[in-house]
């Protein structure tokens, strides 16, 4: 074989590229990440075709959403989109607003909480709430946490002490306050006060904790502490949080619901999905516009 022929022989070989052109592995961002799809998760609460009216004004329109158990679900959306209204409808806090009216259903463990005859106090025990501004009662730390249990008829000192310690431990406040349980709750820092309010909420052993902007009045470090606390609380509770802070929703939640206002100024649910997916590859163009800060 002469050299020229040999070169031709070489050129007939396919080039030895280190890779083949075959597609071997694919991952869709947001998928196969850590969060399972909702379909596979037990549902703790759900809204079915829920509309909420304040007088003639329809604040929420036909919301259907399933809140997975032992997960953190965040409600985000521009101001006035009805996310707080939706949150408050989960424990009938809207009942306190004059002229409010609800159509559709809100299910807790599969039962409609707006059914006639349902005990609202019982609902609010099972679905607790933490508000934007820490609002400890003007009483001692101990009495703040024991307030709910006492209301529900627990008066034995040792049982109350157990509940108070357990609740303060779960809310990551015990080590800070164990030596000053008789001091006023109002003497604590803002972040501590908010954790006290969380301890107060969990002292009555709710199944669900609703949080309405729980960190918006706090400094950044206290905010991150509350977020870490939420992460540990979800082992025992289902959490729904409303936040204006999209980054907070991204950091803290497993699932995110994006709400918007339609032309009648009624809030509607645009998209609800795994947070990892909503913030990396939302399915809806309006969600994309909102989470990238181009709208809202």
């Amino acid at each position, binding site marked *: 074989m*002469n050299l020229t022929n040999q070169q031709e022989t070489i050129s007939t070989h396919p080039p*030895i590229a280190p*890779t083949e052109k075959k597609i*071997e*592995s694919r991952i869709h*961002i947001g998928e*196969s990440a850590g969060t399972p799809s909702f379909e596979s998760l037990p549902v703790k609460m759900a809204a079915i075709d829920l509309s909420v009216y304040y007088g003639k004004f329809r604040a929420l329109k036909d919301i259907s959403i399933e809140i997975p158990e032992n997960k953190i679900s965040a409600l985000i959306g521009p101001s006035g989109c009805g996310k707080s209204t939706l949150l408050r409808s989960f424990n009938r806090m809207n009942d306190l607003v004059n002229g409010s009216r609800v159509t559709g259903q809100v299910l807790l463990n599969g039962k409609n909480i707006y059914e006639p005859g349902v005990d609202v106090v019982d609902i609010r025990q099972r679905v607790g709430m933490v508000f934007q501004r820490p609002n400890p009662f003007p009483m001692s730390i101990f009495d703040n946490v024991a307030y709910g249990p006492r209301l529900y008829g627990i008066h034995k000192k040792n049982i109350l002490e157990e509940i108070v310690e357990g609740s303060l431990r779960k809310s990551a406040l015990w080590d800070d306050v164990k030596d000053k349980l008789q001091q006023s709750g109002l003497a604590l820092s803002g972040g501590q006060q908010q954790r006290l309010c969380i301890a107060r909420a969990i002292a009555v052993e709710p199944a669900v904790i609703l949080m309405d902007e729980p960190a918006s009045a706090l400094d950044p470090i206290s905010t991150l*502490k509350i977020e870490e606390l939420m*992460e540990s609380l979800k082992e025992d509770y289902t959490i729904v949080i409303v936040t204006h802070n999209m980054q907070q929703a991204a950091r803290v939640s497993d699932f995110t619901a994006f709400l918007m206002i339609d032309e009648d100024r009624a809030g509607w649910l645009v998209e609800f999905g795994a*947070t990892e997916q909503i913030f990396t590859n939302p399915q809806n163009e309006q969600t994309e516009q909102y989470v990238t800060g181009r709208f809202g």
Partner: protein
Amino acid sequence: MPRQTLDREIQHLQDEVLLLGSMVEQAMLNAIDTLKHRDKKAARLVYLDDERINEKRYAIENRVLILFATQQPIAHDLRLLAAILEVITELERMGDYAKGIAKIAVRISDDETPIPIREITRMGDLAVSMLHRALSAFINEDVNMAYRIPKEDDLVDDLYNQVYHKNVNAMIANPEIIDHSSYIMWVVHNIERMADRVTNICERTIFIATGELLEIDISDDEWAEEDEI
């Protein structure tokens, strides 16, 4: 302590990068072994190694992007996660080099022309050792080590040049082995490139620790190589 979630995720990702690195090291050693033993069956197993490497790389990339989107990493965290994206790309390419060698092993397994296996094995061992220590430096953010390791690339280049000249002379003496020798050139080229890419990992280590994006000047840059040839 705040940011436990992010810290935990970062630590997990660092473990995953080390795991990916060890998969690449093993793939390269396996590939060279199949060449040495002219073992077609084992060579095809290296193809599977490469698939697993690619999958692991995509999984890590996916996780890093999710952390960018959800955890807003900044400063050191940001540099570390950005560096991980670079490093896994380098590792995946090294996996491709291993697979390339395995493919050559399949092609020349029936050819009895001698292979300079001593030099190839030595090159592979050097490159793998460099990679191993570079990843250790990456995780420990050991800047001194990151500066030292690329210098070892000279040893790999020396061996590459030895094989190159040996091969050219052999081809001139016996044109019938040009085909075979060209394949061997690919093999040593792949190992040599692997060692080059270790330098890129070291650069990222320095970036994480200092914030400085720099190119470590190694003696065998493309122009120097061309001059030499």
